[in-house]
C-alpha cells in the first residue's frame, strides 16, 4: 500500500516540476560566429510586437541562470571552446535550440576553413529552427515546440 502512495506522490511532484519548467523557460543566447541576422531576430522576440515574456521567456545574462541555450552561427574555431564552456556551465536540466541555417548546417559558410559547420557537432541540440534568419514567430514556435517535447507531447507530423 505504501509503495502505491509513494508513486502517487512521485507523479504529482513530477507533474509540478514539468509544469514549472514549461512555464518559465529562461533563455541564454550565444553567438558562435553568426552574421547577427539571427541575433537581432532573437532580440526582436523580446520587443513589444512579439513579446516572448508572455510565455515566461526571459533573456538571462549568466549561463547559471538559464535553462535553454539559443545558439546561432556556424561555430567558428575560436568560438568553439567558448560554446562548450557555456554549455557545461548551465545547470541540469538544460536544452539547446539551434537557430538559423548556419547553426544547422553551416549555411552560406559551408566549407570555409575557419568554421566547424554545425552546432550539433559540438553540443547536443534539441530543437532546430531553420531560416536565414528565421522570423521571430519561428523562433518562438521553436521554443514552444521544445516545451511540448518537455511535456511529452508527441510532435505532430509536419503538414506537407
Amino acid at each position, binding site marked *: 500500500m505504501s509503495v502505491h502512495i509513494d508513486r502517487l506522490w512521485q507523479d504529482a511532484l513530477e507533474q509540478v516540476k514539468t509544469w514549472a519548467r514549461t512555464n518559465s523557460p529562461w533563455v541564454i543566447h550565444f553567438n558562435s560566429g553568426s552574421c547577427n541576422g539571427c541575433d537581432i531576430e532573437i532580440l526582436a522576440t523580446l520587443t513589444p510586437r512579439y513579446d516572448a515574456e508572455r510565455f515566461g521567456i526571459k533573456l538571462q545574462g549568466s549561463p547559471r541562470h538559464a535553462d535553454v541555450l539559443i545558439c546561432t552561427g556556424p561555430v567558428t574555431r575560436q568560438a568553439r571552446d567558448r560554446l562548450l564552456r557555456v554549455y557545461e556551465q548551465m545547470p541540469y536540466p538544460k536544452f539547446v535550440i539551434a537557430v538559423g541555417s548556419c547553426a544547422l548546417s553551416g549555411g552560406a559558410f559551408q566549407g570555409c576553413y575557419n568554421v566547424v559547420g*554545425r552546432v550539433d557537432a*559540438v553540443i547536443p541540440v534539441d530543437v532546430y529552427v531553420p531560416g536565414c534568419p528565421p522570423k521571430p514567430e519561428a523562433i518562438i514556435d521553436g521554443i514552444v515546440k521544445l516545451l511540448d517535447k518537455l511535456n511529452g507531447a508527441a510532435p505532430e507530423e509536419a503538414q506537407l
Partner: protein
Amino acid sequence: MNSDLEWALEIVGEWALEHNAPAADRLDVRIKPEHTAAAARALIDARWGYLTAITGLDGSAEDGQLEVLYHYCRGASILTLRASLPRDHAAVPSVCGAVPMATVYERELAEMFGVMVVGTPDSSRLFLPDDWPDGVYPLRKDAALERAAPAPEEDQ
C-alpha cells in the same frame, strides 16, 4: 585624372616607378616596398585624404610575386600605391608611424598573406584562431588548408 590625383602624384612623385589611371577617379602608382612608409608619411603630412584599406594580392603578377595595395581616398578620388614582394620572405615597412590605426590592417595582411610588416607595434593574431598552425597563410593561392582543417567532428 582630376586635380586631386595630380596633386597626389606630385606628393608621391619621387618614389613612383610608373603610374596609370584605370578609371576616371582612380590612380595606380607602383612603388618599391621600402618606400611605403615614406609615401604614407608624405601623404598624411600633405593632408591628402586618409588610408582607407590595405589589400593583399596573390597571383596578380605574372612572376608569381605577392602584391600589397595601399588605398588612400580623398573625396571621390582613390590613390592606390602598389608594391610587389618576393613570395618566400616578403617584408614591408609599417605605415603605423603616419597612420596609427593601420595596425589592424597590417595584422590582417600579416596573418592572411604571411607578409612580415617591419616595425608594426603589434603583430599578434587578429582574425585567425589561437590554435591556427603557424606558416599557413589562408589567402595565398597555394595555402595548405587541409593542414589546418578544423578539429574532426567527434560525436558527443
